[in-house]
């Protein structure tokens, strides 16, 4: 009986996790293996897979050495990510700091800041387009500039190749800062208040308190938010479709749009899978680098 009991317990435990493992295997592991497998074939997604043409590493070679559109898309996504990592996260952190204090209507502000997050990307994109565009919409940005006496800065923000990507990045920051805000606020609330009290007694200024208490203790949270920002931003695409209708001669092209173009525009499923694998590898490498960086900063 004594021997049977641990076995039974082990089986019970495995029984509990079995459904989750099964679902994970079917919907994540198996498709991933299939994607990897498909990336070595030239296949249009229509003829039976047995008729697909094996091409070895040529899809990956084409991506690496010939597909300049792909790397332009990666650079564009990288630019939006850098803007999000800096502007969006600094804004989120500052607002979280403000809401961490005992201020009136704190919960109301939290709610307001989180609203953009729950909106659909397409809706945000189309609404922003309506607000920004002169011909189709309200031309709000140019009107504001005009009322501030800066009408010489008025511009076709979305249809100028020099400003389209930056406009996309700024709208993305507005849409996404709520996530960072919420996580930062939760992190700030775990910092013992006694530390702030002690600092105040010792005569530390607000800047010193932020630099020597808040930021060091928030490093794990900052690292987490940074990784989530990179993963979320690099996969941006619906917002771009809503804002500028697509790739805009490559100026607002991003990896997911390139993958979709390979699948639907060119019917190159194998190539699209190779792009997906390459993109996944880039994301893993960037996340790993960030993880190491945040660990070093924490140390």
């Amino acid at each position: 009986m004594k021997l049977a009991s641990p076995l039974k317990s082990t089986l019970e435990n495995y029984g509990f996790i079995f459904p989750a493992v099964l679902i994970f295997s079917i919907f994540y592991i198996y498709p991933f293996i299939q994607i990897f497998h498909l990336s070595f074939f030239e296949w249009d997604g229509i003829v039976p897979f047995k008729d697909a043409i094996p091409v070895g590493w040529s899809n990956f070679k084409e991506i690496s050495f010939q597909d300049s559109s792909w790397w332009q898309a990666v650079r564009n996504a990288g630019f939006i990510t850098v803007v999000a990592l800096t502007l969006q996260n600094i804004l989120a952190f500052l607002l979280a700091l403000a809401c961490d204090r005992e201020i009136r209507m704190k919960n109301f502000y939290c709610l307001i800041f989180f609203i953009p997050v729950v909106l659909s990307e397409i809706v945000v994109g189309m609404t922003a387009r309506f607000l920004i565009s002169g011909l189709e919409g309200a031309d709000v940005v140019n009107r504001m500039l005009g009322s501030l006496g800066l009408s010489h800065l008025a511009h076709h923000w979305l249809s100028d190749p020099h400003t389209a990507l930056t406009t996309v990045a700024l709208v993305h920051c507005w849409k996404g800062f709520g996530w960072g805000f919420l996580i930062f606020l939760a992190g700030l609330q775990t910092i013992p208040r006694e530390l702030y009290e002690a600092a105040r007694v010792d005569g530390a200024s607000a800047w010193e308190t932020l630099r020597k208490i808040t930021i060091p203790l928030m490093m794990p949270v900052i690292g987490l938010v940074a990784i989530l920002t990179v993963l979320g931003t690099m996969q941006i695409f619906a917002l771009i479709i809503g804002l500028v209708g697509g790739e805009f001669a490559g100026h607002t092209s991003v990896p997911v749009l390139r993958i979709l173009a390979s699948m639907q525009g060119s019917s190159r499923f194998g190539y699209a899978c190779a792009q997906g694998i390459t993109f996944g590898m880039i994301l893993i490498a960037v996340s790993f680098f960030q993880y190491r960086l945040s660990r070093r900063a924490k140390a």
Partner: protein
Amino acid sequence: MIAALAAGCGEMPAGTGGSATSAGQKIIVWHWMTDRQDALQELAKRYEAKTGVKIVFELYAPSDAYSQKVRAAAQARALPDIFGILGEKRDFAAFIKAGCVANLTRAMEADNHAWEDLLLKKAVAINEFKAGNPYGVEPGIYGVPIDFMTIEMLYNKDLFKELGLDPDRPPATFREFIEMAGALKAKNMPGLVSGWAEDWMIECLALNYAFNIMGEDKVLATMRGDVPYTDPDWIKVFSLFSEMRESGVLAEGVVTMVNKTAEQLFANGKAVFAFNGSWCVNVYQGMNPTLDYAVMLPPEASDKNPMSIWGNASSFMVNARSKNKEEAVTFLQWLTRRDQQAYLAQRTSNLPVNIECLGNISPILAQFADDVELATHPNLWGVSEFPLVTETLGRGIQSIVIGEKTPEQAAAEVQKVKERESLKKRK
């Protein structure tokens, strides 16, 4: 992920046809045409009342999602009895080679071509593979067109009057069109709107002008690789877009405009010209029933060759593995007869494919129908361009329109991709 899920689907036993039916009693039809769904369902009711056969129209929109669904179903052998194929001729050919599409030639040619002769020739040709086609498909007719569309230019007659122009005399030449820019600027009116954020619409106008400037033979020779895109005639085509940009005849942001936005602008009188398909008749009717507009051919840039326009048919294919194949063909024959076609045209404002109905359509639709003879389409050419070349062509023209590249630079880039793809194919 989608690709993997599509690939990962297990196969259903052949011949299920996707519809668990008692033979001949229920036909499943998949389509993507949101604007036709109500009319098709009404016709399905009429067919059931007449024959006892139930027709179920299943709508899957938007078209991108539909396209993926059909491909995944082809892999899983779970296609319905009747379905539509979105994409290019090579995709159509791939479905046929995968054994998913029935050859309808015998039915079309029965009784001395009775069914075939009832339909617009161009609409039938869209679904036909001729002997020696480059896809290696057995010659035949593989689809049944249910309506036809052409893509042309439209102009707002009221805005023409405001500009002091004759609303019955649109610009006939490219020069006249460009010269209108002065009048447009003076009245601060946006000129041409179109969904040029989508590569295919910009490519469509470019190919119209390519046919006009160099003729069909030379365009097709380019696609076969016998003429480079850097040829002076192609540079002329690219230069037209440069001229349009410089003159100011294009509306602001046309390159980032999706077609729905362009339709809203034109319907609300915020643009003088639109480049749009005949489906717009229904769209404008919904957006602004009082809109006074007319159809015109894209203004000719050359008098050497006729102007061409794009024309394509929305078609249904019969699943070659369906148990209800014969009943499906019978239903499609009924659907393309005069009464049903007249009803579809009246309800959806699309061009009917039954030639007997063409004399009985709305005046604005009739203007589109008048130019059907000038219609052409990549699906009719028997030769296809590499997708990456097409994409680079669209992008290159977008770059010209935003003033980023010269026609020569854009042409050189297209040719570079063409040579790379040709080399890859030869390997």
